[in-house]
């Protein structure tokens, strides 16, 4: 081992990040998921730390053949942190493949959970909600807005997380699993819940066309008006909660939930409860 400390160059870290950004899921299979994206993004780092030493390279890369799957956005912090572990190992610190695998296995679950609720559950619905409003009249502005804003956030956000992970090593993600992490997750879940409620109210509108008339043709019961008098949009909430109840309490799959909705809609149309009011 050299007396001089080995350092991974910025260029190599960039390359490793870009492989993760573009290739995290390209060779996806149910069995190994993101393993090959993980393998490939560690490859430039291994090659720089152990130049011209195919045997060590091959041995060390085997640590990365373990199953890997997490939220690919927040997951870049794990790749960065593991790059710094690999650097420490090349400098003779007491780190073996087992240490690296333990860290990977300990992080990918929490990161996946936080990432899915923060990114898929909060950030993207907000961005899409804004974009949908801009595109409401058939204008492409909303779609272009989403493309630009989301991709800038995704690229630079992930890049930031990667280098943050590299700089802080295993400490980078420590706050995610401790007390502070729990507080942050509770706080995010509030934002997520309220945004989802807002999205539902803004964009979804289930209405009934049921009207009861007396014999002069005068409407004496307009169910939709009555319902909105109780709580605006109550029917939309009821249908949503019904779907939620089916899926989380009765463990019905999403596909079967949709089929049940088709049944509900069919019965409703036949009984005259639902009428989309179509004509040519």
């Amino acid at each position, binding site marked *: 081992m050299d007396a001089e400390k080995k350092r991974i160059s910025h260029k190599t870290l960039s390359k490793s990040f870009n492989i993760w950004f573009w290739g995290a899921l390209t060779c*996806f*299979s149910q069995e190994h998921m993101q393993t090959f994206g993980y*393998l490939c993004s560690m490859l430039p780092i291994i090659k720089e730390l152990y130049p011209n030493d195919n045997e060590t390279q091959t041995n060390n890369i085997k640590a990365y053949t373990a199953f890997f799957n997490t939220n690919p956005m927040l997951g870049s912090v794990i790749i960065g942190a593991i790059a710094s572990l690999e650097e420490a190992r090349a400098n003779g610190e007491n780190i073996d493949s087992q240490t690296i695998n333990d860290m990977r296995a300990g992080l990918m679950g929490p990161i996946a959970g936080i990432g899915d609720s923060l990114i898929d559950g909060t950030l993207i619905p907000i961005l899409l909600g*804004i974009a949908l409003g801009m595109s409401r009249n*058939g204008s492409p502005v909303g779609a272009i807005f989403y493309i630009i804003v989301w991709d800038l956030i*995704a690229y630079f956000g992930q890049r930031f997380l990667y280098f943050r992970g590299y700089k802080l090593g295993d400490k980078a993600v420590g706050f995610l699993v401790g007390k502070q992490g729990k507080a942050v997750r509770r706080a995010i879940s509030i934002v*997520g819940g309220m945004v989802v409620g807002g999205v539902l109210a803004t964009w979804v509108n289930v209405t009934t066309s049921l009207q009861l008339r007396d014999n002069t043709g005068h409407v004496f019961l307009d169910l939709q008006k009555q319902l909105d008098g109780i709580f605006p949009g109550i029917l939309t909430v009821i249908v949503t909660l019904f779907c939620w109840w089916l899926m989380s309490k009765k463990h019905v799959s999403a596909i079967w939930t949709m089929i049940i909705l088709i049944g509900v809609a069919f019965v409703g149309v036949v009984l005259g409860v639902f009428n*989309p009011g179509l004509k040519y």
Partner: protein
Amino acid sequence: MTISWLQAAILGVFACLCSNSCMAGQAVGNYTIGRPLVGGLVCGIVLGNLPLGIACGVATQLVYIALVTPGGTVAADVRAISYIGIPLAMVAISSRGLNPMGSAAANMAKSLATLVGTVGSVLFYAVAFMNLIWQAFGWKDIEKGKLNRLYGVDFSWPWLSHLVFSFLPTLLMTHYGAEAVTALKTALPMNGIPMKTLFTVGAMLPCVGIAILLRQIINKAIDFIPFLVGFTLAASLHLNLVAVTVISLLFAVIMYEIEMAKGSGNSNASYASSNGNAVDDDEDEEDI
């Protein structure tokens, strides 16, 4: 409206780029090109009717506003929704002469794209299955120490999986499906029960998408409160989404401070309950 071989082929390439295990990367592929809103833009440009494409994209996006794929299980496939479902919906809407901005067109797009997207999830599993072949190459390359070949395993070989299960299905289904959809127009009149059901379901489908998301957020009954507050702000007070988000941030800050302030001594307990244990969480709700 018909879809030519060339147009179908362009849609096929986009399908390869965006489908999960996407050739354009996760953020750009699945999360950008794959979103129905962006798919609507692309389909609108390719088929030469931008407003109609966007209108279908907006309608379909609502169903999939919260498309999460926890642990690689999919309820719907983005390539099928955005690059097979939306083009077919565009053909169906224009062949029936519906107003593209109307709710009938939107519900038509939702129903058709969701149907295609749900059936299309079989493509997702097919690509993932075929990738096992390239991964087997990869394990051999590691045994032999030919590490550079791993780049090929991750970036080149999967194109073959997509050629078979993304490009070809999109090419064939958009080209021939357009004719079938037009023929269906005479078979199923608009004021018949099947079409009325289809359109009613279209209006309800976004509820499933939202419910999938709720399943992630809600662990116990009390978690419904933030959701209902957000709904009320938008439905009763007519606040837009950014305003709802800003208000929710205030509650988030308060919640964070409460969590950080309480029980400074029991860091072990809070660590243990970080997986969503109910015991510790019950105390939080009384603090609200």
